[in-house]
């Protein structure tokens, strides 16, 4: 049984701050339940006032009844709204507290400890119930616009005017960054029995890896995974978010996460256009899974022409943008150093990647061609031994040729 007065005030404050952090970054009842479950080493079940399932977390280590309704009905009340739960064959027992929004009952929060580690933390259960009450009240508040959180509205392009978005954010106590980078993350092959716990772990790993000095990271639960919106007011913040995201799979391995991680990173976008970076992140994740075998988080910028193929086409302007972006570093180098890297690359592809023939066509020694190809790889960031990178460069060259004025 969970009794009261064992957690210190400092511990309670720390836990309450954790709940606030989860809620402020978009975490709903499920994330709040997972936060409580981690503290108590317990399974946590949230049900609404109609005994409908809302969330379950931490159920990997023990069985949990589909509903607490019968257990609560059978149990005596302790006068503080807490109910001791006795499940058959479970010596530790559990506890349930009512979730209230003012005087209105909104549901029940039931805790089923895995061992004796949850004793003395009833205050934490009450705090979690209060935080969940805020989320359930918001969902029950009526009106489509109010039901959706600010971030959901932003991502679904509900704002046409950046000022309107900023004002709405301010009204909700959200400090909006100028730009964001989205990171989409999913775990593959999770067993249902451990999924809730594992997703809590994954959320923590991602937040620790992505941690930002430029503001709070927003967490959105999407499908079977998460989308993290990382504030990127400056170019360097976007670069760091991208680098950190690519470290998530490795960090998960270090933390013995036990499942494959796949993800994608969008390009930085202004807050009003946050949907674009989210879409790019999810596209990148899809491409990483389908073409690169998963177990990695791939930035959109590194995917070359694949996003275009995924979308089933592009406008001429989009094609030119892709080609320019890929070839720009080589073009800049050629202009500055009076070199022929673009010409060498085009010829190299034209002659079927035969260095000897390319050297003859260019009237240079083949070692010079090898040297230039190494330079091309370093400057463009594309590996000429990689089939994926070759496709990107070939396509960029083809688009460039097709759009050339010298027709």
């Amino acid at each position, binding site marked *: 049984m969970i009794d009261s007065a064992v957690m210190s005030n400092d511990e309670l404050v720390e836990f309450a701050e954790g709940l606030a952090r989860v809620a402020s970054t978009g975490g709903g009842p499920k994330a709040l339940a997972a936060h409580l479950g981690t503290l108590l080493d317990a399974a946590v079940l949230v049900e609404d006032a109609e005994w409908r399932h809302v969330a379950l977390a931490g159920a990997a280590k023990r069985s949990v009844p589909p509903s607490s309704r019968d257990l609560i009905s059978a149990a005596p009340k302790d006068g503080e709204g807490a109910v001791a739960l006795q499940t058959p064959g479970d010596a530790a027992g559990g506890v349930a507290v009512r979730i209230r929004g003012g005087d209105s009952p909104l549901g029940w929060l039931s805790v089923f400890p895995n061992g004796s580690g949850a004793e003395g933390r009833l205050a934490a259960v009450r705090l979690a119930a209060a935080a969940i009450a805020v989320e359930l009240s918001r969902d029950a508040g009526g009106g489509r616009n109010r039901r959706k959180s600010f971030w959901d509205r932003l991502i679904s392009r509900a704002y046409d005017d950046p000022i309107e978005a900023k004002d709405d954010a301010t009204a909700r106590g959200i400090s909006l960054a100028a730009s964001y980078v989205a990171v989409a993350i999913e775990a593959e092959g999770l067993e249902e029995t451990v999924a809730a716990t594992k997703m809590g772990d994954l959320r923590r790993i991602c937040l620790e890896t992505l941690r930002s000095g430029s503001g709070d990271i927003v967490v959105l639960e999407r499908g079977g995974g998460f989308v993290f919106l990382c504030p990127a007011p*400056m170019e360097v913040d976007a*670069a760091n978010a991208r680098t950190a995201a690519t470290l998530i799979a*490795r960090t998960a391995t270090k933390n013995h996460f036990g499942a494959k991680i796949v993800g994608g990173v969008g390009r930085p976008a202004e807050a009003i256009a946050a949907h674009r970076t989210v879409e790019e992140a999810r596209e990148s994740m899809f491409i990483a899974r389908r073409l690169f075998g998963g177990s990695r988080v791939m930035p959109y910028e590194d995917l070359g022409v694949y996003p275009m193929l995924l979308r089933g086409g592009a406008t001429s302007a989009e094609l030119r943008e892709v080609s320019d972006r890929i070839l720009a570093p080589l073009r800049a180098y050629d202009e500055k150093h009076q070199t022929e890297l673009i010409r060498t690359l085009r010829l190299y592809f034209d002659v079927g990647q035969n260095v000897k023939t390319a050297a003859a066509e260019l009237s240079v020694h083949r070692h010079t061609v090898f040297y230039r190809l190494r330079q091309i790889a370093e400057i463009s960031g594309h590996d000429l031994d990689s089939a994926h990178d070759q496709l990107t460069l070939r396509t960029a060259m083809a688009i460039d040729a097709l759009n050339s004025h010298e027709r």
Partner: protein
Amino acid sequence: MHSTLTNGKAINKRDVLRLAKERDVRFVRLSFVDILGINKSVSIPVAELERAIEGRVTFDGGSIDGFVRGEEADMRLLPDLATFAVYPWTNGGHNEARLICNIATADGEPFEGCPRTTLMRAIDDAADVATGLQSGLEVEFYLFDVGPGGAPTTASNDVGSYFDINESDRGELARTEIVTALEAMGLGVASSHHEHGAGQHEIDLRETGLLAASDALITLRTVAKHVAARHGLHATFMPKPAEHLAGSGVHVYFAFPRDAAEGEDVEDDDLGENALFAIGGLLEHAPAFTAICNPTVNSYKRLVAAWDAPIYTVWSHRSANSLVRVPSPEDARSRIEVRSADPSCNPYLAMSVLLASAAHGIRSHALPGDPLTGSTYELNDRERDRRRIKTLPKSLRQALVELEKDVVVRAALGDHIYLAFRDAKVAEYERYRRAVHPWEREAYLRVY
């Protein structure tokens, strides 16, 4: 240089006494550095060696800059037996060896003003994130002619540049002898070559532990001056001996082990996480550690947009003038090269602050942004703002202000060393500020 015997065991007291006897050593120099990195020593007859090894040799700490001020205080010298080495020359016909020492108080407690002890503490403090970290140094210096009366000049009969070979060049011959002497004393020398400036040379020391790498710079400075003098030359580690000459730097390499058990792909060409985060920490703390790594007013005449000296907190794979460069991988370890330090630094303090900065970066997962391609000199204000790139201090005065603001770098030094260093350098800068320099007379004497 940190010796082990041929059977792989660490050297002990009995081994040192035996080696001294076998090599017919007559005197032993008990060597240590002051806070400014100046090499000091107490010479003892070999008969006193056992007493010295037991830490019973004392000296007057009150007479050393930055040690104990205003009073006479006995300090103990605690030799590090692993540094025992016999000089490959004789002194008055007698063989001479040296032992590098840590400094302790009279009652045997580690002295907080000892730079070498400070580095040992920094290494301990970073043990959670920097186990197995090694360092190698690329040291640049000039060999100049000696003028009348033995006064050093900035002239050289050598007109060579990068990697030039001129076998009749006295500098070339002296450098070869310096390398030979270093190897005889147990230092690993990876390579040496002529550098950009006329009379400028570089010696690259093999990677080793951070303490041994710092000891090696002290040894190199001592050996180079000794050998150069025998060739009628003057070896100087002054960062910028003349306006028209390339400055001399010390490039500090850090080699991070990569651990497959920790999820690192050791076959991957990419940097490991620790190296990446270390770069983040180094860039973050660079303005503060510059005072320690570039400790003289002259150091800042080198840190200008010329001769590939770093001036911004930038990292790169290719650019030769970035602050941190990532060299091409040569084995499974991740390497980074810090390019700002110069050979006038106290190597123990420089290594302490670099290590503390890197360790802070690893612990805080500090990411460094994207690496720069191209020359850092071409970055405009807007590009620097977007990348949050900072400018390295342009004077010793500015560097001291940055150092004062950085608690991580100051903590690596400890209060005693920080305050003594600051006071010494503020006084040095003030003397420089009051001096009237030749340039001023040239520019103003006729005009006004």
